[in-house]
Structure formats: C-alpha cells, structure tokens
C-alpha cells in the first residue's frame, strides 16, 4: 500500500492547459524579452511621477530646444519642457489607449460574435454583413472619422479605436464558435438539458479564449499606433498633456534644429509596439498544440 502511494507520487502530475501554455511561452526567448519590455513600460506608466526628473508640463524659456545633457538626458522641447519626463508620462496615454480601446473592442465584439456564431441563421447573416461594412472602412480612416464627429480628446480617440477594432473580434469569435459548437461535448451539454445561454457562456466561450488572447495582444499593438497616429493628427490627447503622437507632431516642425524631440517618442512607440507584436506571436505559438 505504501509502495503504491509512493509510486503514484513519483508519477508526473497532470499539467493544466494554462500552465502548459505558460511553460511553452517561457521557452520562447523573444516573447519573454518582449514581456519584460511591456512590464518595464507598465512600471514606467505607474511610477511616472516618481521616475520623471521634471514636471512634464513645466516650461523653461532659458532651456528652449537644448540638446541631450546631464540635466536633460533626452533634451528639451520648443518651450523648454524636459523630453524624458514627457516621454515617461506619455507612456500612460499610450498604454491606456491600448488597453481601454481593446477592452471596448472585446466587450462589444465577443458577445456579438458569440451570438452570430451560436444562433446562426438571419442573426448571423445580419451581423456578418454589418461586420463586412465596418471592415470595408480602413481602420484608421474610420477611427479618424469617428474621432472627428465625437470631438478631439483621448477618451474619444479610445472609443473611436475601440469601435474600429470591434469587427475583427466579431469575426474571430464567430469563426471560433462555429468550430466549437459542433463538438461532441456541446452536444452532450445540450442533451443533459443546459440552457442555450449556459452552453454559450460556460461551454463555448472558454474554448474560444485562446485565439482571442492572441488577437487582443496584437490589437493592443495596433491600438498604440492608432492612438499615436490620432494624437499626431491632433485628434487624440490634447496639448499640453504629453502623448508620444502629439510630441512627434510638434517635433516634425523642428526636425532641422532639434532632432532629439522626434527620436525618443518615436523609439518608444516602436519598442512598445514591437514588444506587443512579439508577445502576440509568442502566445500564438504557445497556444498552438502542434508547437513543441
């Protein structure tokens, strides 16, 4: 008896699917470095008041367009504000826009896609045609139009990006539901008398989560670029509040005598977006059962 218990303990324990995915992700060096960079930017956003050497809004007429120095590592801008402090505080707008707009897209897209895929028939046809209509308008052009009619602000930019990103999640959820709903365990759940709502929420939804996580990670990258683009055009974060996109918009006017104003905010966008893209790719591979 004791020997049998010892034998059982010696057997490898069953690994949960979530843990298996995390273990696969941990083996991908690129994805782990990307995760580290994302965490670094999150900390930067959270601890901005403690980390920024200067007030990002404080102007100094004696330090207008000064190059990088010991006092101002990233230089100063056209009204003497510290570029490093504005880059650090700008992280907040970018990450906020990335997370909030993708949350909006998920909150709208997943239930609509779930309804289309599960109910089918005319509901599916109606939702699919509406999704096609939204996808026919290029992402940024639709976001610009929505932001223009809603009015320029960071909140409206996030709403505009979120709505523009919704059709992708509708399509993805619908496709995943169509695949899952014909499985035997769904038939079994129906046979034992589960309600449609319960089947959709308890049995189908958890099984469509993996592709949604991957898409959401990649969508954050697209949303960060979209927020920067809208702010660059003057439709996102309004001055003097710092945002990487609006900093680039100002910087392009001083490119010949203050190039550092353009280098750092652009590099920050690039690093953050690259990290989310690498993380998304890593997650896709980690969720793929064929990958080792």
């Amino acid at each position, binding site marked *: 008896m004791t020997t049998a218990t010892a034998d059982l303990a010696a057997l490898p324990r069953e690994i949960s699917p979530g843990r298996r995915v995390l273990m696969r992700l941990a083996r991908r060096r690129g994805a782990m470095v990307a995760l580290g960079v994302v965490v670094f930017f999150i900390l930067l956003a959270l601890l901005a008041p403690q980390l920024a050497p200067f007030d990002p809004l404080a102007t100094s007429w004696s330090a207008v367009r000064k190059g990088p120095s010991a006092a101002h590592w990233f230089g100063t801008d056209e009204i003497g504000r510290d570029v490093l402090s504005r880059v650090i505080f700008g992280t907040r707008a970018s990450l906020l826009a990335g997370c909030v707009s993708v949350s909006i897209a998920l909150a709208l897209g997943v239930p609509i896609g779930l309804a289309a895929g599960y109910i089918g028939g005319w509901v599916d046809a109606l939702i699919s*045609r*509406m999704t*096609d*209509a*939204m996808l*026919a*308008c*290029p*992402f*940024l*052009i*639709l976001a*610009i*139009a*929505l*932001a*223009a*009619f*809603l*009015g320029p602000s960071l909140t409206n930019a996030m709403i505009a990006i979120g709505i523009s990103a919704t059709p992708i999640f509708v399509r993805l959820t619908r496709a995943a539901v169509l695949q899952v709903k014909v499985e035997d365990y769904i038939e079994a759940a129906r046979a034992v008398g589960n309600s449609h709502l319960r089947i959709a929420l308890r049995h189908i939804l958890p099984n469509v989560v993996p592709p949604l996580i991957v898409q959401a990670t990649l969508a954050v*990258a697209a949303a960060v*670029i979209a927020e*920067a*683009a809208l702010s*660059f*055009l*003057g*439709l996102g974060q309004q001055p003097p509040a710092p945002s990487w996109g609006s900093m*680039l918009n100002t*910087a*392009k006017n001083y*490119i*010949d005598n203050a*190039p550092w104003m*353009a*280098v750092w*905010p*652009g590099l920050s*966008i*690039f690093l953050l*977006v*690259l990290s989310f*893209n*690498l993380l998304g790719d890593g997650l896709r591979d980690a969720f793929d059962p064929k990958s080792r």
Partner: protein
Amino acid sequence: MFNYLLRRLATIVPTLFFVSILIFGLQQLLPGDPAMILAGEEHDPSVIAYLHKKLHLDEPLPVRYLYWVGGVLEGDLGESQRIQKPVLDLVAEKLPVTIELATLAILIALSIGITAGVISAVAKDTAWDYAANVFALWGLSTPNFWLGIMLILLFSVTLGWLPASGYVSPFEDLRANLAAMIMPAFVLGNAIAAVLMRHTRSAMLQVLSSDYVRTARAKGLDERVVVLKHALRNALTPVITLGALEFGTLLSGAVLTEQVFTIPGFGKLIVDAVFNRDYAVVQGVVLCTATAYITLNLLADLAYFLVNPRLRDSASA
C-alpha cells in the same frame, strides 16, 4: 463564372447598404443640432434655417437617410462647407496624387516583400531567414509617420539629397516628382512589404514541400529554375490576392504619410476636412474609400477565381 459573379455581387449589396448606414450615422454623433455646428461660429439664424431645409433636418431620421442615399446614388456626396465645392469634385481632384503615391508604394512593397519572402523560405532557419523575419517585425512595428520624420532627418536635413515636403506633378517635372515621392512611397510601402514578406514566406514553404517541386528537383532541374519558375509562380497567386486586402492599410497609411510630407492628396483632404469641421467631406472620403475597398476585394476574388483552375471547374460543374 457568371453565376459566381452574380453570387458575389449579391453579397455586396447588403454590405454597401450597411456602409451607407454607418456613414450616414456618423453625422448623428455630432452633439446638438448639426446645423448649428455646420453654420460655423457666427450661428447666423438665416444660415441655420437654410441648412435645416437643405439637409432636411426637420424630417424624421429614416426620411433624411433616404434623401441622403438618394443623393449619393445620383453622385451627389454633398458640398464642402469651407470651399463651397461638390465633395465628388474635391475627391476627383485629390485622388490622382494618392493613386500615384499608392502605386509607387505597392511597387516598392512588392519588390521588397516578395524578394525577402522568397529568400526567407529558400534559406529557412539560416541568418537570411532571421534577417527577413526581423525586417518583417520592424515593418509591422514602426509607425510610418515616425519613419517619415526620420527619413526627412537623414535624406533632407543631413544629406540634402531629397526634398523634405511638397508635390510636383509628374507632367510638369517627372524628376522632381519622383524626388518628392520616393521617400513617402518607401514609408508607405514599408509596412505592406512586411505583410507581403510573411505571406510569400508561408506560401513558398508550402509550395516548396509539394510533390511537383520534389519531382522538378528529381529531374535534375537547376534550383533557380525550380524556385523561380515552378514554386514562385504558384506561391504568388494567394500572395497577390491577400495583398489586395492591404488596400486599407495603404489608405490609412496615406493619410499620415501625406500629412508628414505635405502631399496634397486624398489623405490630406480628410485631415483638413476634420480640422475645418467640413463633415460632408469626411463622410464623402469614407464612403469613397469603403466603396473602393469593396470593389478591390471583388476584383481580387475574381482574379483568384480566374487563376485557380480548381475553383473554376467546381463552379462550372
């Protein structure tokens, strides 16, 4: 073929109907009375009354939609409040500039993307493959407006080789036109090249492992002939059709690129309209873009249908 075309056209009609609802609905997002906003800051009561009558603002919403869509079907996209010109004329005026920019960008994207994709697939798991993948990630992660600014810094400010902004018609001076367009076209083509590279790589990897390529190699054919004549020709079909879907990326990118390089095209038209609160122009541009996107998708589908014998045969069977 005819049946396929009819079936495909039948799916477009409801999509276009929803596009029209979406674009008409944009106007309803304006807070308060649209006539008050469109009348400008002076709020002249006679102008407001005129706009109410002209835009049928006193009518119920569905009736207003019917008036609007009726106008669109007759080619009336409204009138620019600022320039006092029909929106369709403005679009027609700006479109050739953006078409030139987009064509150059696509040529750059195709030459870089397909070449990098083929090299990456042929030299799988080598330094070349990694370099091509890094290039794709770079292309997908670089904001094109930042890349534009950095290229201006290098080629215009530092080296003085190319103009930083402006546009010259190719009919006036082709050399000056190309000098002004090469940087924006590269910026615009960069992201699309990355997408094309990924599509080409995966299509080539699939084709290279197929039986007929193995047979071609077994016959002793030169590897270059196998790759370029047998594999690439078949791999390119899905790449070209998938590439057509990048039209949206191209137009979104053109908005920002034209802003950075001050090119008076379609993208600059929508941005200027947004800042001048010229809402009819914004709606008109979105409508034209969506219609063009749907048409291009249809053409891409038809092209795929025509070049794919299996699809063609199944339709005629």
